[in-house]
């Protein structure tokens, strides 16, 4: 079936109703920048030194995004946090 969203669909889906996507929304790769700022991700290569928390705040400041959060803390050499 055509989905208009490209090849993102997982295989083996069960179809309840065969419908085409309408004009609303954006496929992830064509999402406008302002929306990416509001729910995107930066896959950062954490530098050594600052904590994950500090680096996360820096990224927020660089992008001008207030709400930021990281997944899975990479501890500094001092504190120990589960990974």
């Amino acid at each position, binding site marked *: 079936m055509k989905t208009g*969203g490209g090849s993102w669909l997982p295989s083996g889906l069960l179809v309840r*109703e065969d419908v085409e996507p309408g004009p*609303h929304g954006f496929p992830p790769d064509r999402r406008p920048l302002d929306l*990416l700022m509001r*729910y995107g991700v930066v896959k950062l*290569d954490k530098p050594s030194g600052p904590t994950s928390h500090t680096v996360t705040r820096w990224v927020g400041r660089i992008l001008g995004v207030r709400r930021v959060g990281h*997944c899975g803390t990479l501890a500094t050499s001092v504190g120990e946090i589960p*990974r």
Partner: protein
Amino acid sequence: MTGVLPILLGRATRLAEFVSGESKEYVGVLYLHDSVDRGELEEIASEFVGPIYQRPPVKSAVSRRLRVRRVFELEVLEELGGQYFLIRTVIEAGTYVRKLFYDIGEVLGVGGSMRELRRVRVGKIGERELTTLQELVKAVKIWREKGEEGSLREVLRPVEEVLPDMPTIILKDTAVESVTHGASLKVRGVAMLSPDVTPGVTVLLRTLKGEVVGVARATMSAEGVVEADSGVAALPERIIMERGIYPKTWQGSGGRFYNEGSQ
């Protein structure tokens, strides 16, 4: 410590626990306090593969109960000389790598410690896709000063890229907006779904274009949803899509679908 650190922006922060995933991969340097040959280290290292007991260290974010964590892989990549060894390991979330290295040293009888650590994978995210802070700063500068989006779009990625494979329900366009308002997802709002949807499981809600709407708890099996004429397929738990992107398809002030003022 360096390496993979996924940073979620705005509403995507609500999905942090799903991005973290089950396992993480690390490459680190183990320093042994006396000389041990590689073969002996490898033999001991192999004993740490599987479930291990760990007590969280004194300085830790969680309660210090003894707990079981799984080590999926542990191998000696290279003998670096001077009692330093390069180790690669794949561990369950919540395992302390520093403690693991320390314990290997203890079992060897010479003592050991972790000297460097780099996280090379978190869930789906590998080292190759990473952005440095410098690259991010540069991309933002080009965008602000020249209005060119290209380089910023390379580093600021859709959250869909970092979500693991999980049971999925694909919504019809007409159902999206009501879910962003907190309404339950009715079976009539479902276009497709993966066969692994069963009552009680956490499912990803996506649009026909592939956008993640949020995460919900399924209330029916996949077959049930396909066959039923009415009923609730899933209850939204964390919605990240903003309101107003998809059209509102219901009448009135909205009171039929959600409590006004609950926003």
